[in-house]
Every structure is written in structure tokens, then in C-alpha cells.
């Protein structure tokens, strides 16, 4: 996944984390690509940088895996948009990946914390 640095206050996404974030975002209901981008940025207090372009191949990948489903529809402002929904297996995947991510994060945190001390 392509990531790009643009200013020091923003963190580039680690490999695989974008998938997790997309799934997480979709827990709150169907959303289109643009909405997902904004939602990730807002929820992370603009800390995370999502390269807009890299979102769509990621969405496609998740769709291929069957974790999300997509359908063209009409959005609030009467524009056409492709809406993504979390599927059952996507929900399972989210739970599994979230736990894995937390374990990984805490492990890394312990290592880094120990070093600081």
C-alpha cells in the first residue's frame, strides 16, 4: 500500500492497518469512499494520513475477499456514490484483527517503554 509523508505531524499508515480502519469505519453503517476517507481522518483527529488514491484499491481488495459489499446508490446530496457495507465475515475479520492489533500495539508499547526507562 502506498503511503506518503506530508509534514511531520501526520503518521503514515502501516501496512495492513488501512484495511482495519476501513472495516472499523463501516461498523457505523454503509458509507461511500469519500466518506470513509473523511471519517478516518476525523476520527484520528487528522493524525492519520490516508492517501485518497490508495483507498480505492484497498476497498476493492476487501470486496474481493468478501469482507465488505458494495452497491451504487444515491447519497444525501443526490449524487451517485458507491456505498460499502460490512459483511458478516467482515465483522468477524474486524474482531480478529482488532485484537491482533491491540496485542501487537501493547507489545510494541512495552518494548519501547522499557527502552525509555
Amino acid at each position, binding site marked *: 500500500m502506498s503511503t506518503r509523508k506530508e509534514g511531520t505531524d501526520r503518521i503514515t499508515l502501516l501496512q495492513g492497518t488501512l484495511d482495519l480502519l476501513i472495516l472499523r469505519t463501516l461498523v457505523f453503517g454503509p458509507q461511500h469512499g*469519500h466518506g470513509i476517507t473523511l471519517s478516518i481522518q476525523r476520527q484520528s483527529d487528522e493524525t492519520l494520513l490516508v492517501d*485518497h*488514491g490508495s483507498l480505492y484499491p484497498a476497498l*476493492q481488495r476487501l470486496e474481493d475477499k468478501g469482507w465488505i459489499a458494495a452497491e451504487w446508490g444515491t447519497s444525501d446530496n443526490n449524487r451517485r456514490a458507491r456505498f460499502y457495507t460490512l459483511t458478516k465475515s467482515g465483522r468477524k475479520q474486524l474482531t480478529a484483527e482488532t485484537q491482533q492489533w491491540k496485542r501487537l500495539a501493547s507489545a510494541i508499547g512495552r518494548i519501547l517503554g522499557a527502552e525509555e526507562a
Partner: protein
Amino acid sequence: MWPWHRRSDEDFAEEMHEHIRRETKRLGDDEGLNFVDARAKAIRAFGNVTATRERFYESRRLLWFDDLRRDLSYAVRALRRSPGFAVTAVLTLALGIGATTAIYSVVDTILLEPLPFAEADRLVRVVENDVLGLTGRVVQRGVHYQEWRARTTTLTDFIAVSQSIPALVATEDGTKRLWGARISGHAFAVLGVNAMLGRTLQPDDERDPHVVALGFEAWRRLFRSDPKVVGRHLELRGNVPQPPLTVVGVLPPGFEFPTGPMDYYRPFDSSRPPVQIPVVARLRDGVSLSAAKDEANAIGTAIRPARPGNAPPLPVPRFDVQPLKDEVVKELRPALRVLLAAVVVVLVIVCVNVANLLLVRGTARRREIAVRAAIGASRSRIIRQALAECLVLAGAGGALGALLASGGVLLVKYLAAVEAPGIFQLMFGSTILPRGHEVGVDPSVFGIAFGVAAAACVAFGLLPAVRLSQPRLTHTIGSRTRTVRPGDARVQSVLVVSQLVMATVLLVAAGLLINSFVRLTTVEKGYDASNVLALQLVFPGDYATVRKTEAIEELLRRARSHPNVEAAGFSRAGVFIGEEITYGTFVPRGRTLEEMRANPDRPRLRSVTEGFLPAMGIPFIAGRDITAADSGSASPGLVINRRAATLLFGNRSPVGEFVDWQFDKFLIQARVVGVVEELRNESLDQEPFPEVFVHYRQLLDVVQRLKLPVPQQDQTALGLLSFAVRTRTDPDSMRPVLAQIVRSVDANAGIDAIIPLQRLVASSVARQRFYAVLLAVFAAIAGILAIVGVYGVLAYTVAQRTQEIGIRMALGAQPQQVLGLVIRRGLLLACTGIALGLMGAVAGSRVLQGMLFGITPLDRTTFLGVSILFGLVTLCASYLPARRATTVNPVVALRTE
């Protein structure tokens, strides 16, 4: 992703554009940017739209099935641009796959599963070997069934089965001879064979033995495939009247037990159980063949009297247990192994050739590949493209190969069929391949052959792509490929030399077989087979001798009076029916009886009528043909062959000489009236015997004086009732005429066989022809492929060295020098390959030993001929690219730099 819910590129693009439109609007609304700035920022935030689209496109492509089609169609177009390469590669693959599959399918069926019975691997034959009196030939005897069965611990499922016995039946077409056997009632249950109609024999039948199970062919011929045949009667006509047999069933087509087809099987009579009889049995579980052999020796020695002290030594164990399948495949095995080796070699050559072709093509396309890599084709993309090409080649080769394989199997079956009616089937068999009718293309064999060829194709097709798609090689574009990479050339040379080696070995083997076959068919037969019709007759069993002789003579009289008949004669056993008889001893003047008797090469007797020798076209060296007047008189006339003349009279002229024909109780003073050429009577590869031709009436007279039983008298003097008719027209067209004459002479007489002699001669060498043709086909394929290999490598070298050659010529090199440059390389390859191949052939040709006639496996002419011919052809193959090298225009070659 599957095609039916696949997302289009356009759909994806639309989603992205929608995103940018939204972001533009959002930036305008939230940050107050004007449209142009907002749009620019939105696009910047999105990143490279095209790259993303491409990534989408690529991600779709990672799902292989989806886009394989596109790769394949590109591959087809790419291959169309170089049709020479594509056609060569596909044909090569098809030949390899087809030939391997066809031969392997045939051999697999015959060698590996020769007998279609339950647990056939464990079936064995129990025999006692003995040496046949004069000839020294080993014959096999049956064993004492009951006693043996009681004693054995290694064998089970004893089946007694008699030799095939001729029996006569009356049909609408006159008398016919059937071949049948008596067999244990439980045999069919043990073999696991069910009847096609009705039932097979069962153990109870031995108590009520007047039943018969028909073979498929006999049911077809005699009962015209009557579906209600069960319950009908079969009346075998022997010398003594027999009660009719009730048909209980028909056996499935192709049922042959123990070997060869049988017209019928009938049970043994429990009131007269067999004494010494051929036995088939099954090894008990866990018992080895050698254990059974050891036991056989113990049992045999215990129950059979020892051989007399003066008996000739046996070259084989006296009591033996042999796998039954050996009997079926014994003669075939060495030849089929040679064929198998040949196809494996061809398959290897095919793989090598395809590898070579692909390497050459890969190297020739290195610029193209490098350019594609440079303008952004990913490595996986290039490799996949190469893979697609390989798959197209392999697929086309495989499809064509499957066609060739089924054609090949048909061809093999066609070649294996032997035209052998009636009694001749006993001599030649009806086919060279037992169970040939069951042979078809074996899908798993095809799968393996295709797999091997496709694997070679993919491996060598990918190699250049993998190597050349590495980024550091992109300088290839700038440098032009003006020098040959030594590694490539070396690999190709090694491949080509190995092809030449294998092809040479095969060519020598095929050369030996062809040479041997030509010698066999052009050997001096001693007779002229063209325009001769061979006729075998059958008389009812209850005919008195005189009725038979009258019919024989009437038949000859009517045949001779036909305007298209040049000569006609009778013989007790015609050509190819090997029956050697000797009665009495011929003692010329000045020699003693003991002296002549001691000679193991005693003259054989042949019982003939006048006209037989001329009808067969046997040249007379001196004297005249035998006549009816040469029998019964005080001094009957004899015709002897050249070998007998030398044996009896040395250098003296035999015609007019008297010879004493001595028997234990009487003596006949005979006179030699003619000398004929010696003839190869039994088979073309058998040396002629010394022979004495005697009028059949004379021989009849002798056997009557010897007081032989009447059937044996007939058997000796009249035998198998063979006629030879020399026609003035095509003998085939005279068949109905002869058949009509037979019917008019005696409606009860049956025609066992009527066939032009030339076709019998062909049938007699069918086996040798079969091997020679098949091996020749493989050798030709191997040779052609090897030559294609040589040509390919040299053409490639020339193409790669065009600039170098241009420079040489610009510096004053003469065309001959350039020609020599290329040809020398070709010659080096050819000489190395052929020389190594000849060495291989010397080492390996011994396996052909038993298949050769008149030459040794190291036949110099063949070796020399093959190396010269093959050498010349490879030289021609290297001349073409060499010619092209001389036409290089130095100016053009250097300008394209």
C-alpha cells in the same frame, strides 16, 4: 474474481472521479477555495489517478483465470508472427506426446496386464520339459494332475486344460475345423470370467460332460450370432460318432485361455479323468515363484520315473513353474522393451528440441523483452506473458498429440493385424499383439506424456523471460545483441549433441531391423509365391481314405482344366505349416544303413502329387516332376531337393540314381527322377531341410504296409490337405472359382483357408515388419528432430553473428571462408553427436540380437550407412544457415549497428 460479477475498469474510474468531485465540493464549502484551486488540491490529495487505475487493473489480473484469456490471445498473436517457430514447436510436442502415448498405451496393456483374469499375476503353468527325439527341441508336457494337486503346498486353484484339439463340424459351407479344449469345470469361476450369453462351465458339468461353452468367434461364425443359442447342439464329427454337445453359453469376445483363441471349451469327463495334462494353477498367497519351482522339482522327481541315462541332456529344468503371462508376452517382451526405450528417447529428444527452440526464441527476443521491461512492464507481467506462450504451445501440442495418439493406436493395431485364415492362425496368430482389441489411448499415459512435455516447455520458455526481465539487463537495448553469449551457445550445443547421440542410436537400431527385414523378405525362398493360391481343405472325419483321395484327384483334375489355372498340386502340409516327418531311411548305393541313420540331418519326407512343385514355382535343377506313375511300381520315382542331393550323392548327378528306402521289415528300391531347389518351407528365417518329395499314393502305400492305424495313415499321407494352384490371373480373383470347384467335387468338403500365397508370405513376416516399421517411425522422428536442432542452433548463431560476419567480409573474408566458418561448427556438432551415438549403439544394439535375421547386431554396413547418411543430412542442415551467412551484405550489416 469470477467473470460473472467482475467489476469493470470504467466502473472503478467513475468511483474515483466521483470522489474527486466530492472532495472538490467539500474543499469549496469547508475551506472556501475557488473551484480551480479546490479541484487541484483534491487531485493532489488523491495521488496518481492513472497509477491507481493501473493498480486496480493489475489487482484484477492477479486473479489468474480472469485475464489468462487476454494473455493467451496475445500469446497466440505473438506466435502467429513467427509461424516457423510456432509450427515447429507444436509439431515437435505433438509428435512426442502422440508417439509416447500411443506406444505406451499399447505396451502398458500388453506387458503389464497381459491376462484379463482375476489375480492373473499369480497364475502359473506347471510343466515337465523333455527333449523331442531327433530335433533336440524342448517340448513341454503336462503333469499328473491328481497326484500333483494332492501333494502341492505352494499352489492352489489347479486348472487342468488340454492342448487345443482340432475337431470337425458339418456346416452349410461344408466341413469346418474347430479348435477346442477340455477344461476343469471350476476354471471359469477361478478365473473370474462370466459368460456373455448363458453360463460358463461349472464343476457339475464334469459328471455330465456333453455340454460346451462356445468362444465368441465360433458363435458368430457357426451359429450366426444366434442370441438363443443356449440349448442348441454342436455336433463334433470325429472318426467315431459322438453324442451331440449342448451349448450352455457363449464366452465374451477376446477370451483366450491359456493362450490363443479357442472355438469351444468342454468339461473333462469325471468317469475318465485326465492323467498327464497341462496344468494352470495359482501361487498361494505369500508364496514366491522360486519356492513353487523348488517344490515342483521335488514333486516331479518323486512321482515321475527318472529320465533314461542315454537321454539327451535338458537345457532347462525338468519340472518347472512359469508365470502364465510369460507365455503371452515372452516373444513380445524384448521387442516391446526396445519400442518403449525408443519412445522414451523420442520424448526426451522432443523436450530437448522444444527447450532449444524456446531458448533460441527467448534470446532472439531479448531486446523486445528488455524494451518492455524498460517502458514499465513489471517482471511478473513479462514472465506471465512468456508463460502464456508456453501454455499455448503446450496446449496446441497436446491437442494435436492426443489426435496423433489415437491415430497411432489405430496404426499400431492395423500393423499388428495378421491375415491368417484357418490353420494359418495357429502358425502366425491373428495378431502380433495379444489383447490388441482392448488397447486404446490410456488417458493417464497421455497425462504423463503431456505433463513432461509441457513442463519442459514451461521451464525453458520461462528461463529467458526470468533472466532478461531483471532490470540490470535493460542495457541490452542500447548494446544490441551483437555477440553470442557463450553460455547460451554452449547449452544449445550440448542439447543438440545429446539429440544427435540419441537419434543415432535409434537410427542404428532401426537400420538393423530394416536391413534384417529386407534380408528376410528377399531371402531365396526356393519358390515363387506370386500367382499362387493356397487352399486348405477339410473332409468329414468319417470319410474313408479312398473317398478322400478320389476327391483330391477330382479336384485337381477340374482345377487344371480351368483356362486360368497353370498348374495345381496337392501336398500333405503346405508352406508355413511346419510338419516334419521321416519314415524309413534313404540309403544310396555304397553307403550303409547305420551311416545314414546316424546322420541327425536326415531328409524329411514330403507327400505331394504331380503338379505341386510346378504350381509352387520351385525350380527344377535336373530331371522331371513326379507323376502318378511314380507310385506303387517296383521302383517308385522320387524328387529330391538340392540339399538332399548333396547329402545322398555328394557331387554325383542324382537323376537316375537308385536309392534304397529302408524300413525295419522291408525295403523299397526308389529312383531319383528330379532335383529341385531347396525351399524355406516352414518360415523364411528357417534354413531349408534336405527333403525328399514322394507321391502321396506311394507314401500311403508305405504306411499301409507299415500297418499304421487308419487315422494315422491319413494323417501321414494326406495330412492337412494343402493345395497349391498357380493361376494365370490375379490369384485373389480365382478364389470363388476354386471354392465353386470344391463345392462341385464334394459338398461336404469345407474350405479351411483360401488365400494368395503372397499374402501368407507377408503374414509370416508380419512380426518383423511390425517392429521394423515402428522403430523406423521413431528413428525418423528422432532424426528429423535432431536435424531441426542442428539447423536451429546454426541459424541462431548466424543471426547473432551477422555483424561479426559483416566485419569479416568487409575485411576481405571470402564467401567460402564464411561458409566454412558455419559448416565447420555444424560438422563438429554432427561428428561429436554421431560418434558418441555410434558408441552408444555398439553398447546397446545387443538387445536386438534375437530380432535380427542374417546380420549381427554390429553389422558394419548398417553402422556405416547410418553414420554417412545421417552425417550428410546434418551437413545439409548446416549448409542452409551457412549459405545465409555468405549473403550478409557487409555494408548493411554494419549500418544496422
